[in-house]
């Protein structure tokens, strides 16, 4: 590409290519996007006939004013942050794992299977080993599911986007088969759900009297671990190099296959852990509706968080807030559920739109007199 700058031939604002991407803008644009979303939201609420300030308060602030709301925020954010953190490892290395949802389901199946087995096999329902065992099983389940696209990509160069996405539907059918068939609660009137897990298979509460469980700490640990891996380790550097410039990585002796495996196994493992956290936390059994699409929403969270672990943590909390705020809007103001989806869509839209500022700057000046004046950095 020879000419990178877009120029408008009339006076007023024009976009001018930057010599290099603006680091400040990388971190600022999510805030710009959030700000634009709030402003557009205010217009939306006004158009719906509601006081925009009150509606925005109900949506973004009211859920945070009670212990109940805060605990639920962390409960909702936990699976999103876990999945998105794992995905970010792969995304940084150009490994496009779209199947976190399926990996989450496999984690839930593996962990839930152990819980159901322990409930049958031991009179006390299993001991203190059960929860760590379920965590390991959850991680292994997610990894096993992610290993399939990794193997097919490294062996046969199969596109991991398609393979991981398609395996999500297979995972859903596998879970459906299990809860309709062999794992169905014998006392459950043939409804497709397992027996409730025993107490030993349930994550203990972090704050007594709320649903906030220690799974939230797993998410924090995953964020910290991913930060060390991506920001402070040689492996993280290799992932980045292979992601940005695969051939340069090859010349440096970095293995592309290794990055594929690492990216998919990290995404699969943490998504599997998210599945374990959901079934051992707020749900407490297996059925077909264990995830309302966390694995897909996590892709948005990962990009909203700039593929940076701390950014993902904030983005996960923000995304969780939009769900809680959506409930509150329905209850307090009688607004439809679609408002939640609109807000989530607007965040992503404004983020992608304002990303133009990373590579361009806005100039408020007259256009150049002749086209032959080439601004700095325009030739590549």
């Amino acid at each position, binding site marked *: 590409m020879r000419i990178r700058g877009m120029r408008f031939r009339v006076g007023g604002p024009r976009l001018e290519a930057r010599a290099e991407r603006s680091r400040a803008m990388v971190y600022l644009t999510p805030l710009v996007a959030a700000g634009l979303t709030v402003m557009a939201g205010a217009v939306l609420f006004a158009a719906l006939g509601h006081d925009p300030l009150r509606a925005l308060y109900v949506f973004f602030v009211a859920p945070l004013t*009670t*212990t*109940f709301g805060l605990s*639920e925020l962390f*409960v*909702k954010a936990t699976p999103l942050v876990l999945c998105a953190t794992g995905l970010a490892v792969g995304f940084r290395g150009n490994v496009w794992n779209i199947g976190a949802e399926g990996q989450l389901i496999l984690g839930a199946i593996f962990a839930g299977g152990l819980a159901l087995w322990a*409930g*049958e096999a031991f*009179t*006390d*329902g299993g001991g203190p080993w059960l929860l760590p065992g379920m965590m390991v099983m959850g991680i292994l389940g997610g990894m096993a599911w992610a290993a399939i696209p990794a193997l097919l990509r490294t062996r046969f160069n199969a596109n991991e986007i398609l393979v991981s996405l398609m395996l999500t539907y297979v995972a859903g059918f596998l879970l*459906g088969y299990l809860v*309709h*068939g062999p794992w169905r*609660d*014998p*006392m*459950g*009137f*043939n*409804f*497709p759900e397992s*027996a*409730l*897990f*025993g*107490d*030993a298979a*349930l994550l203990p509460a972090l704050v*007594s*009297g*709320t*649903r906030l469980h220690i799974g939230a700490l797993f998410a924090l640990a995953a964020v910290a671990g991913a930060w060390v891996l991506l920001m402070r380790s040689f492996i993280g550097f290799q992932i980045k190099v292979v992601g940005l410039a695969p051939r340069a990585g090859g010349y440096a002796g970095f293995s592309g296959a290794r990055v594929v495996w690492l990216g998919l196994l990290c995404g699969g493992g943490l998504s599997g852990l998210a599945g374990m956290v*959901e079934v051992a*936390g*707020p*749900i*407490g*059994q297996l*059925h*077909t*509706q*264990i*995830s*309302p699409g966390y694995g897909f929403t996590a892709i948005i969270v990962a990009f909203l968080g700039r593929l940076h672990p701390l950014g993902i943590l904030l983005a996960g909390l923000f995304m969780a807030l939009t*769900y*809680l705020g959506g*409930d*509150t809007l*329905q*209850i307090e103001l*009688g607004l*439809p*559920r*679609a408002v939640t989806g609109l807000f989530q869509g607007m965040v992503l839209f404004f983020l992608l739109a304002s990303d133009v500022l990373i590579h361009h700057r806005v100039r408020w000046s007259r256009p150049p007199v002749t086209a032959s004046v080439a601004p700095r950095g325009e030739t590549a």
Partner: protein
Amino acid sequence: MRTLIRSGGPVLSRRSLAAGAAAGTLLAASGLSADRARAADPLKVGFVYVGPVGDYGWSYQHDQGRLALEADLGDAISTTYVESVPEGADAERVVAQLASGGHGLIFATSFGFMNATLKVAKSFPDVVFEHCTGYKRADNVATYAARFYEGRYVIGVIAGLMTKTNVIGYVGAVPIPEVVRGINAFTQGLRSVNPEATVKVIWVNSWYDPGKEREAAETLVAQGADVLSQHTDSPAPVQVAAEKGLYAFGQATDMSAFGPEAHLTAIVDDWRGYYIERTRAVLDGTWTSGDTWGGLASGMVAISDYNTALPDTVVAAAEAARTGIETGTLHPLAGPLTDQAGTERVAEGEAPDDGALLSMDWFVEGVQGQAPR
């Protein structure tokens, strides 16, 4: 709670329903007491829907019930609803939020809300809960459902008289006993007038997915079906029938607007009477927990207006079936009932009891497709 202990085996230390018991205390402490001024203010009635209110099916009909409640009781109550609530971890949060927000009566209108509703009910003993289509109850949790299978027998009779190919397409939602029971009752009605006819079932594994419902309906038509029936909530199969010049039945609500020529009649879920009755009971202080399973006789299930194109003889046959069920002279699943393998499951002169109906997981003869196992 019959389901907490498994008989004949080791007693399982299942998840204690008291797990969330302390939640009420905490919510009360944060200033969200459930019985906040309930005596003076109107009773707040909350509804939790699994689909959008505009699904034109299940959730739409529950919302019609809510609107009828508002119209009937006026200032004595105020209503709130939360739509499209996923049946996983989110349900408990929404139900708890309604309970803590001062709602005195909460209708949770999908099976998947059962365990969440019971957990929250434990934390809010002063709030009354009504759970639709579940089987677990508590002192402050009642259950209710409708005998849709009665209506399905009636439309089965119509299908049997209207089909020319003797193949009926049936879009199945989620393979749970309610849906299986409906398919069986439909097939019994169908074959009572047309023993040659068979029912082909395609599962879409969803209650509301217009795209998948349309695909399933088109596949069924391609397989020779000339009458479509559905247990899913969108009007997509009716629209497919209208496009192909075939017949279909509406689900949950009168869907004739989506195919006036194709729409023969619909099984209507009418929750209005129940919602008004139960809310009045809460207002009067006479509410008690229990289980309600109403059918055609109680008006909870209704047959909508017949298509004017239906011959009088067909309408007469359908009306005879409807009257028979209403008066109790006809049981839609009366024996002899044989399963797909030809084994007799219910003997002649007998009818399955409610327990057998509630856990039905096998298809009667005449259904093509696999029963969920």
